[in-house]
């Protein structure tokens, strides 16, 4: 599918750009973290331990006022002492208000973001590209109808529409069994490394969010695909194919789509980044189908800004690094393949 010339351009650009290398490293890291979460998470992210809540990350400590009552020569006295709470090695990045390990939740949060980002983009791409290609290729009324509908759906900011749809359709989610846990290879490995076992055997895939995110972002793909189809159909090799007797379906499948993949590929990377941001915004506002999400953790940490700043900070940094990685890969593809799309796509 990817022609050797595209591969050559990609390699050439990769060699000459450090940012591209950084991008690939970050994205690979995110994929690995998401895939092998059960192995690298220190604790089961959902385990609560109220004794050890709001523990600071390593290198920091926290003071808290503790009041205790004591019998001092016959009368009840309230004693205020300031107690210093130090970080513990078992929770390097600290714990949140329910005593859940912040680092482990960030690791599992990667899985949610990755899933929603990729699946949402795929759904948007399939919807958008098919409609856009047909509209651009046949033009006329089909094209007009699409363009008017695209204008209307652009009038609704993705976040606004997403909130409305999720709010109204509910937050149905799917319990996906964790393959590694199912294979039973997680606990032995964790035990070997002296890590606590008992990782969650499944993780929650926010079905509604993925569908809504796909529905909300298909317009960007439709616009790009339509633009490509409009220009490619005028190319001489399409006319030559028609002269050879090729049917419309063959022309679209064999000539238009393959030559339209470059801008669609670049837009896809932009959309993955945008959807990760969108998903975290939704879960921050409480519109996500799962609690194991960076956005949700940030919203939890908001209440403890003064006392436990790390609860909100760590998942936020995770989002930033993940999205920077995806954006850098997007820039690498755009610089190497020069698809000529600027500013399309977005939250």
């Amino acid at each position: 599918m990817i022609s050797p010339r595209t591969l050559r351009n990609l390699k050439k650009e990769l060699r000459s750009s450090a940012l591209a290398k950084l991008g690939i490293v970050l994205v690979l890291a995110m994929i690995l973290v998401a895939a092998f979460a059960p192995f690298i998470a220190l604790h089961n992210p959902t385990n609560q331990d109220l004794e050890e809540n709001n523990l600071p990350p390593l290198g920091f400590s926290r003071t808290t006022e503790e009041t205790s009552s004591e019998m001092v020569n016959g009368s009840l006295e309230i004693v205020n002492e300031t107690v210093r709470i130090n970080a513990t090695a078992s929770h390097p990045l600290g714990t949140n208000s329910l005593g859940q390990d912040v680092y482990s939740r960030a690791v599992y949060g990667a899985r949610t973001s990755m899933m929603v980002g990729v699946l949402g983009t795929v759904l948007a791409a399939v919807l958008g590209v098919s409609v856009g290609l047909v509209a651009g290729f046949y033009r006329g009324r089909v094209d007009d109808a699409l363009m008017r509908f695209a204008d209307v759906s652009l009038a609704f900011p993705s976040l606004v529409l997403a909130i409305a749809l999720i709010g109204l359709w509910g937050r149905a989610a799917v319990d996906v069994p964790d393959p590694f846990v199912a294979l039973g290879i997680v606990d032995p490995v964790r035990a070997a490394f002296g890590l606590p076992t008992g990782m969650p055997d499944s993780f929650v895939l926010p079905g509604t969010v993925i569908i809504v995110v796909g529905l909300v972002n298909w317009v960007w793909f439709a616009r790009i695909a339509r633009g490509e189809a409009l220009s490619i159909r005028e190319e001489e090799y399409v006319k030559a194919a028609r002269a050879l007797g090729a049917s419309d379906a063959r022309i679209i499948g064999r000539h238009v789509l393959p030559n339209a993949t470059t801008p669609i590929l670049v837009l896809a990377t932009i959309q993955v980044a945008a959807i990760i941001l969108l998903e975290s915004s939704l879960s921050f506002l409480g519109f996500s189908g799962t609690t194991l999400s960076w956005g949700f953790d940030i919203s939890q940490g908001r209440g403890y800004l003064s006392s436990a700043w790390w609860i909100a900070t760590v998942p936020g940094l995770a989002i930033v690094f993940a999205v920077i990685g995806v954006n850098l890969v997007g820039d690498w593809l755009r610089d190497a393949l020069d698809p000529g799309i600027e500013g399309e796509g977005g939250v």
Partner: protein
Amino acid sequence: MTDRDDDALLQVRNLRKYYEDGGGLLDRFLGNEATSVKAVDGVSFDVHEGETLGLVGESGCGKSTTGETLLRLREATGGTVAFDGEEVFDLDDESLSAFRRRAQIVFQDPFSSLDPRMTVGAIVAEGMRIHGLPESDPTVATDAELTVADETDRTVDVTVADDLDRVVEAGDDGVARVPVTVQRVETDDEDGVAYDATVDEYEELLGATVEERDGELHVAVTVTGSARQIRNARAGALLERVGLSADQVDRYPHEFSGGQRQRVGIARALALDPEFIVLDEPVSALDVSVQAQVLNLLDDLQDEFGLTYLFIAHDLSVVRHICDRVAVMYLGKVAELGPTDEIFENPDHPYTEALLESVPRAEVEEQGRRVATLSGDVPSPRNPPSGCRFRTRCPKVIPPDDVDIEQSAFRDVMDLREDVAAERLDPAEIRETEPAEYRKQEVPGITGENAAVVDEALEAVADGEFDTAAETLRERFETVCETTPPDDEPGADGEVVACHLHD
């Protein structure tokens, strides 16, 4: 209407192609009237078997649109195109597909005519894939040229699969023949000897098995290659035929130069072995030295496959070199049509004359040659001039017979009339320089009655009344060239001179 010239392979009659734009519902509501660009506005010509008809003209004259419309790559607005007697625009899908195999096209731009994501082999073989070729032609007999190595003492008979012609092309005698040799081979199993048959051509596509039955050797030759392999081999052969090499089948278009890419385009057109090819400016984008190579190739292919060409170009020296007959087009219509030498040696239509005059010759005599150029620009095909479309620039525009005026002066008058119609004159300037004086500058060669009428018109312009000025000039100087369109129907000899000088 001329009778149907029976041996003409292609008969185009009154072909029209208009592009509508600005026709959106909203546009009409807002009053921006839908305008139609009359790219091809009634073109008629024939193309005879084995001939190369040139279709030449400047950009915007509609030559490429004509080429594409007659192959139904664009929807025609009107007119008829008969190919080998069949009306192309009425063909149903099934017969349209058959027509596609007989008529092909080669494009101009080496970088846009090949799909960058397909290998060169796949590009050339695409036609065959669409039409399920190579299929076996039942009328073609198949045979083997048997050579039996001397020491085999058995009688041998050979049976050849009848779809052999999918791989081996039929010879002149209409038989697809393949050389097969049978020889004895020493083997170490018990009877010490066995017979082996090998096919000496297309080894990877054909297989030969030999069986010994009661003292006789029976050799069976069958096609073993898959359809894809056969197509690939045929594509390789076609690449060789156009001057590239078969082992470039898996290369991509970006690995080839402009000239080589055009050769791939030609190989693609040949894949369905058509009878008729539209060559739409095939060498215009190439450098001179590469252009010569491709022109020679097109010549050789025409002789070898008996092809008929419609050669579209704007370079007159290339057209002179390769075409038997030439049609000169201007603004969507045929201005002149006839045998190449006649058109180039003594052109009849003023536009053809001007074209030939303008072409710079690559020889020393050309140095410092002063060319009498046409005035103004090509008018917009949105609203072409009435009557003869060339009248706005024609150096031989015909004055009305009751007006005696010298040709160049009449041309100035007609230019003046154009400026008045387009309101390009500045009333203040005319007022300031006095109409008579202004007339002397703009239209020097006129005197007496003619001068008086022009002054009267300029007077009107000075008062800002462009319409009355146009009317006064029209009454006196209206020419047949603007009232009646010249006849551009091919005569009995198939020639056309669309000019009133020749009615």
